[in-house]
């Protein structure tokens, strides 16, 4: 791009956007192995903070020192995009963790009460039946109960 006024390039907003993308990427990498799970939100948060620092610096340069730096409109546009993306990601992070406590739920070593519920064909099945041998298959060593939010 020609730069007749001899203004300096303002790269800070681009760095801000790059760190924002990194922060969102870390947030999206939740499916990685469990030991990383605890570190990822912190990495994400640190990158988001870095992104905001660079965005503020970029805006400060573009709007506060227009005689030195160019890219006024661009730095505003990049900042808005990055802040919106970080905001949406933070919102998704908070909503994904809005879960009730599991303190009162059955814990290891506890004997759980039997129950009886309908399967997909409407047939009642009890936990006792699930733990017992059925025609064609021996009794399983254990039953893995998977409670899930539902299908939608």
């Amino acid at each position: 791009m020609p730069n007749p006024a001899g203004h300096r390039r303002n790269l800070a907003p681009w760095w801000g956007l790059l760190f924002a993308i990194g922060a969102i990427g870390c947030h999206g990498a939740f499916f990685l192995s469990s030991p990383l799970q605890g570190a990822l939100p912190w990495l994400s948060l640190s990158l988001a903070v870095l992104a905001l620092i660079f965005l503020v610096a970029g805006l400060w340069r573009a709007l506060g020192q227009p005689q030195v730096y160019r890219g006024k409109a661009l730095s505003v546009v990049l900042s808005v995009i990055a802040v919106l993306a970080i905001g949406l990601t933070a919102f998704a992070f908070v909503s994904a963790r809005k879960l009730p406590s599991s303190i009162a739920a059955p814990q290891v070593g506890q004997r759980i009460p039997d129950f009886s519920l309908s399967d997909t064909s409407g047939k009642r099945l009890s936990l006792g039946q699930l733990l017992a041998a059925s025609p064609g298959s021996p009794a399983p060593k254990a039953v893995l109960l998977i409670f899930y939010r539902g299908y939608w």
Partner: protein
Amino acid sequence: MRPVAISVDPPEVSRSLANKAGYTFPILSDPDAAVIRQYHLLHLAGSPDGHDIARPAEFLVDSSRVVRWTNFTEDIRVRARADDMLASARQLR
């Protein structure tokens, strides 16, 4: 080890899930969340349209109905890994 899935979905919805995903293990319906409540796993207004649903949780239960392994996620996107569940089942003797 026999996997069994439980949610508040009616049997028809669970059937379409089983058909779509090819699941052959039992999927049980707890439309009133009676068992979910009994196990203290109720997530009030937890579904996108504000219905009461189960919080995600996994239990390995042995033949005398004693819990041998649990997994309670703190993030709805992170669930028990198949490897971990299979490893927990292998440890039962």
